[in-house]
């Protein structure tokens, strides 16, 4: 028995989302049939809006409704420090800490020859241009602690440092509130390496 055409089309669409396979897609599609019409309409509108109303900030590369984005436009923020991250999601996490008052730069990826991503394929040229045009004193590299994130950080530091700008990297080690007893060897090793005087 085949699915009716509208159902199978909807299922195909659901299956384009990450983590959704055929069974989940079929469950969601059949659930949609019994949803209230207003809810379905607003769902569809939200989907379109996310695509139509959002753009990338021409300065920092973050997702925004207005270009330049609110953070880049905010005159109260400290323009001398920039945190470099891989993805827009990480800007949101860092903003939650409510402590950093500088600016951001979103790379949209990391250097990875396997995936065919070279320095010109991610937002590195725009970062270099920013550093030339603006009065930046420190760049904080907040790429992930993976092999690729580390390579990207090393690459950026090599490009930026000769310009006399301070380059720093986020600390690795124990997470806040954790027990040393339960930490794995590698985390402990990093924590000991990165210890500081008190």
């Amino acid at each position, binding site marked *: 028995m085949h699915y009716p055409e509208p159902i199978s089309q909807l299922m195909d669409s659901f299956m384009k989302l990450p983590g959704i396979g055929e069974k989940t897609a079929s469950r969601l599609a059949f659930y949609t049939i019994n949803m209230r019409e207003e809810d379905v309409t607003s769902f569809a509108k939200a989907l379109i809006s996310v695509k139509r109303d959002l753009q990338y900030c021409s300065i920092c590369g973050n997702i925004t409704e207005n270009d330049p984005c609110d953070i880049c436009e905010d005159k109260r923020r400290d323009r001398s420090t920039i945190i470099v991250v891989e993805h827009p999601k990480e800007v949101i996490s860092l903003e939650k800490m409510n402590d950093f008052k500088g600016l951001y730069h979103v790379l949209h990826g990391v*250097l990875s020859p396997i995936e065919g991503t*070279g320095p010109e394929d991610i937002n590195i040229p725009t970062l270099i241009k920013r550093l030339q045009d603006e009065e930046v004193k420190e760049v904080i590299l907040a790429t992930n602690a993976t*092999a*690729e994130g580390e*390579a990207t950080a090393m690459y950026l530091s*090599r*490009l930026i440092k000769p310009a006399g700008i301070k380059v720093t990297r986020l600390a690795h080690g124990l997470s806040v509130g954790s027990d040393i007893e339960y930490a*794995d060897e590698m985390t402990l*090793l990093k924590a000991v390496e990165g210890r500081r005087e008190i």
Partner: protein
Amino acid sequence: MFLEAIELKNYRNYEKVEVSFSNGINIFLGENAQGKTNLMESLYVLAMSRSHRTTNDKELIRWQADFAKISGRVQKKNSSFPLEIVLSKKGKKARFNHLEQKKLSDYIGHLNVILFAPEDLSLVKGSPSVRRKFLDMEMGQMSGIYLHHLVQYQKILKQRNHYLKQIKQGRKVDEVFLDILTEQLSLEGAEVLKERYRFTKRLETWARPIHSEISSHKEELTIHYQSSVSVQSETDKDQLFTDLINNFKKIKKREREQGTTLAGPHRDDMLFYVNEKNVQTYGSQGQQRTTALSIKLAEIDLMKEMTGEYPLLLLDDVLSELDDERQTHLLKAIQNKVQTFLTTTSLSGIKHKLIDVPKIFRITDGQVEMESE
């Protein structure tokens, strides 16, 4: 540690069988195709939760049965506890002390075994990749830090190989990026090298006296870790890092032409020498066997050093591969020390060499009977 007893249900050709073992030597005696190796395999599965012969657990379940069960009782220092593995078509369950262990890594380690089967000769005779895999497997079990560096190394290697391949195909070279990949690779490579060298030396320390004993003091075994850079006990990580970097500078042109990483731990080897001659190339069959055996027996001592307990030794069809003298020395080396299980088709030539009285089990078509003597 000792395995006191085992019970099999629907395991391979065993419908239901219960066996209690001696803390010394246990001999599984029987004709071919009666189930000797199956019984041996069940001990391995009980310890490691998987078979060394197949990756398909369903093969372990008796023909037309729904599940297979292996339960055993392990005695460690002053305590004893049950272990149980249940295999069904849906998957497997591992229980330690009647409690199900969701993570198999929590289960493995309660019973340690070292298996020596004829295939293990490839450790000496086979390609370098067999020996690198041996090093990585053994060291990975012992040290989480080694495993971490190894995994990082392999990831960066993959990236670097891809980049070199793209360069070979005519992509514009970003020298800074290639330098960084080389540095990262050398950084992790130095860690891997250092640890592998240390492990090789420890293995040699244990294997030398064993090899000497088995060969009636006629042969001297040395193990050499072969790498693109020279490693000595006193070489520190920073030195190794610098050496690796300098070596990459030397082979820069060739790497770009061939589009792949040409040096590093992934190309290293472990070489065995007997009386200063390379066993793989110049050794006799017997010398190769002795070497493989010494390495395996050295693992027993290494395991004891690591965990504080001797593992079980499983010798599957190995005796027939060794000459009379080597057999005698092997049996001497393990007696009164390690609980041993061995399979054989005939007792002649073995029994008189044993000081201990072995417990003999006669295996006929899925039935196990203790020989009364």
